[in-house]
């Protein structure tokens, strides 16, 4: 049985501009011990989804439908006090930019002990022991607990907030952009720590990021989000080697790689839709070089495409052919003829 099963989850925000449909009909499942990467661009609903899972949505947000089953129990149907028992104990979260929200005038150790006492009903002494243990676990010397946040580097702070999430030995950790804004070398080390922790503790990981490379280096499975929906999911190898959704195909050529032989980048023309007014059909239609009339009218649902891979596209069954044409098709849509023509000297 899956550890976490999310079914048709939808979340809306009420704003002055209208209703923002931040998460739309999202389903996925996470087997125990695995790491799932949730990738998507800024504003596609990743953080909203994560917050819905542990029940810490802002007040203007509302879950309109769906179920979040954790070890078989639908958390959304639980009374508030029972949901509390799950939060931090069973599912912990490293919030986005958490390292910047450490209290600057309190020692890191005190903040950790405070948090552990609050969340876990431990005595202060037990919490202090636990804090030292956790620090060692994430590769920090326990004497660093006495330092103030500004005395720690970005990487150390990030390790500290990861340690806080692990305090009550949760089987599932959700990490929202844990390495964003860190320098490459630091990022590499923090990712290594996360990898070690997975191995040592056997925790399952839901990793949220906009950076595909981070998913590739840490996760087993990946779910690609676009405009509030999951448009493709599968194992990392499947999705990156044989994408079935045009958006994923487009992403492959859209950013430079340090090692791959790459003649030129192909942009995805246009911009993601405004979630206050999501289009009627497939949300990717306006940017998709393979759109057919049906795409403008009917929103495709996430369907199994064999081998555990899933895609939400009316033309997913043609994926092998589309994949071959993708680079050229996206380039044509972007009006990027300049690059296909031979380069002359200026």
């Amino acid at each position, binding site marked *: 049985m899956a550890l976490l099963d999310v079914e048709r989850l939808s979340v809306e925000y009420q704003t002055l501009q209208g209703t923002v449909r931040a998460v739309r009909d999202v389903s996925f499942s996470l087997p125990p011990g695995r790491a799932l990467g949730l990738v998507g661009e*800024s504003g596609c609903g990743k953080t909203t989804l994560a917050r819905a899972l542990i029940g810490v949505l802002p007040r203007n947000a509302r879950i309109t439908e769906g179920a979040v089953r954790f070890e078989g129990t639908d958390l959304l149907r639980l009374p508030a006090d029972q949901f509390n028992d799950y939060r931090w104990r069973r599912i912990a979260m490293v919030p986005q930019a958490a390292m910047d929200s450490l209290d600057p005038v309190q020692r890191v150790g005190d903040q950790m002990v405070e948090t552990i006492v609050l969340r876990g009903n431990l005595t202060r002494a037990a919490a202090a022991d636990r804090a030292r243990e956790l620090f060692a676990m994430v590769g920090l010397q326990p004497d660093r607990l006495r330092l103030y946040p500004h005395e720690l580097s970005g990487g150390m702070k990030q390790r500290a907030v990861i340690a806080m999430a692990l305090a009550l030995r949760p089987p599932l950790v959700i990490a929202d952009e844990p390495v964003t804004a860190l320098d*490459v070398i630091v990022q590499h080390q923090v990712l290594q720590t996360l990898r070690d922790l997975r191995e040592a503790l056997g925790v399952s990981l839901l990793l949220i990021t906009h950076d595909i490379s981070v998913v590739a280096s840490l996760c087993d499975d990946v779910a690609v989000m676009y405009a509030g929906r999951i448009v493709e999911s599968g194992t990392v190898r499947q999705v990156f080697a044989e994408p079935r959704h045009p958006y994923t195909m487009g992403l492959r050529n859209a950013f430079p790689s*340090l090692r791959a032989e790459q003649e030129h980048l192909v942009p995805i023309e246009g911009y993601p839709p405004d979630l206050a007014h999501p289009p009627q059909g497939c949300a990717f239609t306006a940017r998709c070089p393979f759109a057919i009339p049906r795409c403008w009218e009917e929103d495709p649902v996430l369907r199994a495409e064999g081998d555990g891979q899933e895609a939400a596209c009316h033309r997913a069954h043609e994926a092998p052919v589309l994949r071959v044409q993708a680079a050229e098709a996206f380039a044509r849509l972007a009006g990027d003829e300049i690059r296909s023509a031979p380069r002359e000297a200026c």
Partner: protein
Amino acid sequence: MLMPMLEVANLQKHYTLHGGMMASVFGGRRVVHALNGVSFNVEQGQSLGLAGESGCGKTTTAKLILKLLRPTSGAIRFAGRDISDLEGADLLGYRRQVQFVFQNPYEALNPRFTILRAMLEPLVIHGIGASALNRVERVADALRQVHLDPPEAFFMKYPHHLSGGQLQRVVIARALLVEPRLLVADEPVSMLDVSVRAGVLNLMRDLTRRHGLTTIYISHDLALIRYMCTTTAVMYLGTICEIGSTAEVIGRPKHPYTQALVAAVPDPDPTRAERVVKISDTVPTPLHIPVGCPFADRCPMVMDICRTVRPALRAIEGVRVACHLYEGPEEVH
């Protein structure tokens, strides 16, 4: 030999912190050694990439070149002329030849100006265009060049009506309006969505090629520099530790720091093996600069000499490296 377009010679920039929290935190030391002797040349038509971790002095270098800051010491020469004493018409002339693309497109346009108004500004300042109509036409052309089509649709919009990618296109178009010779771009896409980055990068590459522009790209992202630049300089703690052709510097890095940097970049292809990076993740502070090699504290290859003698840039196999591991003729400035 042809004169380089831009010469940066032994540039130093120290910031003095004025009291307050920083001073008390760092125990009385109050000088940030942001740049400690940076030298490089940029030839006409070249594209130079400046790479390095946060705080190594990339933006400071750019702002010195743009004369937004004054150097503590050292010289910057543009087309052979020292820019430090430029004033009045000379300064205006320099400003017309050197333009800047800012990191944060949401901040680079005045929130109270319409796009048209913001783009007319450089034309008015430099007196370009024969008539008001001609200027508006130039603006329209520039917007069309950056694929903001039809331009009229953007004229009366305010910055907050546009997405990040569109704003960065406006910023690029505005920089090109004065027909500069050198374009400096500080992290031009780091604030943009993954899917729109390629569009902006390609645009910059095409436009700079078409206009024969010399460019300096600043980025912490080596992959981006590999894509955009012919020459790469890697900075560490206010110095250049390796500079040379991009293929060499990124393909076969020599300096231990460059090696770590290259190895640490995660790979979007999950089939490629993880690499091991052995250096610590303690980022150094420019408040105290070591006497010897700035990288000595983190370097896995550190030797005795490294702690006492500052390595100078030496020519090694076509690139220039500042590391005692390599021997070669030292450069003098």
